[in-house]
């Protein structure tokens, strides 16, 4: 989240799209209802009417996979009606930048597309510069080649009639949504967009989020209390895991994993390639070197490139994401798998095939609270023949959050420490302890090796106390970082060095554990104003609660609204002050150069209305991998930058065989693959049956009655479930034809107290062009009575 949970209470309008927080993030409604009590509006946009929709002032329906059309139409509306925040747009975004002549867009494709590689040359989407290398601008926003005009032209194609013909939204409702959310463009007003996996789990997931950000920049909502672009994370600590290098191409703090390319052969080359020339990221060498010092300690020296050569290197251009790992597993290229709390036999895309892939492994280790569908994939209950499966499976019992101590980082980036409440049951252990024991054993195995390939594990520093139980306080101190000589804790990432004199396991967390102690343990209820609670736990970066909060002030540094004051420029003190920590150099005056570069992390300091991700600088509507209609915006059906994986893993269904759009979701009562909740009796009784939700109209067409058993089929599998016939699903009346949609929870499997068939046996094995998150949220199926 750019903002945080409590901050939702300050919004004038919350647009909830691709999320169902009443069901999946219920605590958000504590704050959203406070906003509503003060006259704030809630808009729910979803293919079906949810528990969130019931709490909303306006509910708008859309067909799964048509978000960009929906949002593009809103951008067009804001521009046409001039509802955007003009002063903000000029000062804080790249709207005025002149775009290089190479940029063009025609029939769904931007310039520089390479059809064979299914990719673009992103450097061809650049800004025009003068002889000194400065970007050319037109602050009147009238130059036809400025970002603003190009954007306007791009989205002029997204007129209301065209948009609702694609999304199926009722016209009156669509206009009401546009008008209501558009009202937040007024200076001093703020609107927030809340999204979750309903936005991201598409072949255009990244662009879905990009277009939310664009709308928010246009309306001047980024940086405002009650504003922002807010990802509701799907697990209590998924924010923390991502911060700590969960993704294959990231190390801690969102820095790059080195690749085995010639330019990255040396640490110097790696840093040169990956360090921007301007913006705050130009400090990357300080953060990276400090991280290498945390990894390798005294074995990282200036002479050995701070241990850079110990780092594993990725094969350039190779995709190591979840689906590609399972492709490789299916093809027999992987020997072993370590799984910590993950259950792909229920949660993976095309789960039936992913289960097959597991049987190609030599060994698999599952670390979990219960024996899950995945750790038991070889059993008869899973439909397997144990005698045919050679995979050796190890199960390590893990303990639950109450049985261990440590921190979690919530969606609002608050790092909150938790203490152990009870002793672990049986032989179960904390993840940290399991990893600690594994590392100690590995180091022991390799300690006498003289092979060069074994040096990394020998060089790795692992000083977390004596014995089998790691001292978590030492881990915390290292994450923050300390001076290698004095061993004093570093107070903030700005003090990290690139000469090897400091270490820091994760630069964005540098500042949480200072000489004052572990600040994530703080529990001070004092509200300094606006519910930011600066002495309650600690938020990254630098305890800032609202990202981009410089933009909550006008260019001269005063809040757009007195009621929405978080930080402001104190001319007497010559400092940014307020009830939040300014997300800006604290002494940079508004009137000096860079004083209005509100997004100072970025090389240009300006919010990117025009910003290149893999499929282009402006989000464009493409249809999902499987869809029942043709793309009315262009002749390009599927996102042109999406990559195909192993064909055997991803059978494709056609609309003639599978005419119904389907989506998956979660419900309040279960969590993820259900491994935790379907083993909990009081949650299991609340939702004990796998069901498919469908409209009364579809049910009538198919001769299905409520509570009937039905069979849903896709090109990849079939699932039997109960029919839940409801008024909350309506057919989508599109321009081309009327399309039915169904939806189902993906929580069920064959283990646990309550069981049911697994929705993900139906879902496709294809994903977003940037993140490769699978397209769980829009695919085709058919349904009939069982």
């Amino acid at each position, binding site marked *: 989240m750019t903002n945080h949970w409590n901050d939702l209470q300050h919004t004038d309008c919350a647009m909830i799209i691709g999320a169902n927080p009443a069901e999946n993030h219920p605590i958000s409604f504590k704050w959203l*209802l406070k906003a509503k009590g003060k006259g704030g509006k809630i808009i729910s946009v979803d293919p079906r009417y949810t528990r969130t929709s019931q709490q909303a002032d306006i509910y708008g329906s859309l067909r799964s996979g048509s978000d960009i059309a929906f949002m593009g139409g809103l951008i067009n509306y804001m521009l046409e009606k001039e509802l955007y925040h003009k002063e903000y747009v000029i000062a804080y975004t790249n709207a005025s930048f002149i775009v290089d002549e190479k940029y063009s867009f025609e029939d769904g494709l931007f310039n520089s597309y390479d059809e064979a590689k299914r990719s673009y040359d992103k450097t061809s989407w650049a800004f025009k510069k003068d002889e000194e290398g400065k970007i050319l601008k037109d602050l009147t926003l009238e130059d036809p080649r400025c970002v603003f005009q190009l954007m306007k032209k791009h989205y002029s194609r997204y007129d209301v009639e065209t948009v609702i013909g694609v999304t199926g939204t009722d016209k009156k409702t669509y206009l009401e949504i546009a008008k209501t959310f558009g009202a937040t463009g007024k200076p001093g007003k703020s609107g927030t967009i809340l999204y979750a996996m309903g936005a991201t789990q598409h072949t255009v997931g990244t662009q879905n989020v990009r277009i939310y950000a664009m709308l928010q920049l246009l309306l001047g909502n980024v940086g405002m209390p009650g504003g922002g672009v807010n990802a509701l994370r799907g697990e209590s600590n998924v924010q923390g895991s991502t911060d700590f290098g969960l993704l294959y191409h990231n190390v801690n703090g969102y820095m790059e994993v080195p690749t085995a390319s010639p330019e990255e052969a040396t640490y110097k080359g790696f840093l040169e390639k990956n360090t921007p020339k301007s913006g705050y990221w130009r400090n990357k060498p300080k953060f990276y070197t400090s991280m290498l010092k945390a990894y390798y300690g005294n074995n990282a020296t200036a002479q050995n490139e701070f241990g850079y050569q110990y780092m594993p290197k990725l094969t350039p251009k190779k995709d190591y994401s979840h689906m590609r790992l399972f492709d490789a597993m299916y093809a027999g290229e992987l020997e072993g798998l370590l799984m910590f709390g993950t259950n792909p036999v229920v949660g993976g895309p095309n789960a039936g095939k992913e289960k097959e892939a597991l049987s190609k492994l030599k060994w698999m280790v599952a670390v979990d609270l219960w024996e899950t569908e995945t750790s038991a994939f070889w059993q008869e209950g899973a439909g397997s023949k144990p005698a045919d499966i050679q995979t050796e499976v190890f199960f390590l019992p893990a303990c639950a959050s109450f049985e261990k101590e440590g921190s979690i980082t919530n969606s609002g980036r608050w790092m909150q420490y938790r203490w152990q409440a009870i002793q672990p049951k049986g032989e179960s252990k904390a993840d940290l302890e399991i990893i600690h024991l594994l590392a100690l054993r590995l180091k022991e195995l390799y300690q006498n090796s003289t092979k060069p390939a074994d040096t990394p594990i020998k060089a790795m520093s692992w000083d977390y106390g004596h014995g089998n139980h790691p001292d978590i306080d030492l881990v915390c101190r290292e994450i923050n970082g300390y001076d290698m000589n004095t061993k004093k804790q570093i107070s903030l990432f700005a003090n990290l060095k690139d000469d090897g004199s400091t270490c820091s396991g994760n630069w964005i967390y540098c500042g949480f554990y200072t000489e004052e102690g572990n600040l994530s343990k703080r529990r001070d209820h004092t509200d300094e104003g606006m519910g930011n609670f600066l002495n309650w736990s600690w938020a990254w970066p630098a305890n800032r609660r609202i990202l981009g909060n410089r933009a909550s002030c006008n260019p001269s540094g005063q809040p757009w609204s007195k009621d929405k004051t978080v930080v402001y420029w104190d001319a007497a003190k010559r400092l940014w002050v307020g009830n939040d920590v300014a997300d800006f150099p604290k002494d940079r005056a508004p009137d000096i150069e860079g004083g209005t570069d509100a997004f100072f992390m970025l090389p240009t300091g300006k919010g990117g209305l025009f910003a290149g991700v893999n499929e282009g600088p402006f989000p464009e509507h493409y249809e999902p991998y499987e869809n029942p209609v043709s793309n009315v915006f262009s002749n390009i059906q599927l996102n042109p930058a999406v990559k195909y994986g192993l064909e055997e893993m991803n059978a494709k269904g056609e609309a003639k065989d599978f005419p119904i759009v389907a989506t998956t979701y979660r419900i309040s009562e279960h969590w993820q693959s259900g491994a935790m909740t379907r083993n909990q009796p009081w949650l299991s*009784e*609340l939702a*004990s049956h796998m069901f498919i939700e469908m409209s009364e109209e579809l049910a009538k067409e198919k001769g299905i009655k*409520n509570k009937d058993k039905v069979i849903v089929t896709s090109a990849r599998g079939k699932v039997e479930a109960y029919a839940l016939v409801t008024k909350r699903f309506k057919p989508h009346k599109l321009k081309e034809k009327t399309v039915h949609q169904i939806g189902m929870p993906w929580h069920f499997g064959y283990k646990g107290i*309550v069981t049911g068939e697994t929705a993900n046996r139906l879902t496709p094995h294809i994903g977003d062009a940037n993140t490769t998150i699978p397209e769980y949220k829009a695919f085709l199926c058919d349904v009939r009575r069982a």
Partner: protein
Amino acid sequence: MAAEYLKFVDVTKCDGCRACMVACKNWNDLPPEYEEFQGSIQSHEQLTAHTWNVLTFNEQETTNGGFEWLFRHQSCLHCVQAGCEKACPEDAISHTKFGSVVVDADKCVGCGYCVQGCQFNVISLATYKDKRGKEYRKAQKCTLCTDRLEQGLQPACVTACHTDCLIYDEREAVLSEANSRLLQVKDRFPNANIYNPQGIKGTTTVYLLADKPSVYGLPENPKVALSQVVWKDYAQPIGKAMLGVTTMAVIGAVISNSIAKVKNGDKGVDHHE
């Protein structure tokens, strides 16, 4: 006697999360009951001896062509004039100082008259086995967490509620909050009303309903039958003194049947259910 504190359920603030149901089972250590698929996301058809609160889900098309999905936290209303209490031949059901209606398990003989006496389908009998395997029954229902109230805590369901749909507070504060909430929601819910039926001298759980009581399966104007009042407050004390307990139980059965008729008659009104 009117309670000093009331539980308030503002159904318009409910987001249907059902944390109240889990909190109830947790505090009262009640076993799970896995029911058949209900054809909606509702988990249990109705309250039972082991499920003291159920969130109901009701899909309603409105007269103006709109749609509402109505949720209700359903549990004991703790009537001031409680049908269950009146029906009990053993004086096992009584009001506490908090206004909560509770069953004394030591006195309850499991006769089930209270089940007939309740107009809200709240109370029912749980079956247990003693050490010798012999079955016996006890009436069970929500206690308003009287054991928590005695410790100065709020009811478990109220503590779990994150939207202030459930509030437990001083009587006047609750009633005034209910009235101001009613005004706020009238635009969207023209039939909204405060449910605190005076025919039974009010309840210790007061509702702000988004639609008519009958839409939620609640009697529009519940009353305790005169026969029930006469039975409990006059006949029973005298009868027990004169005829002995066994004979009174037989007479009780006759009276109870007549109450059951009254109740079923009421049910005929609830055609929306």
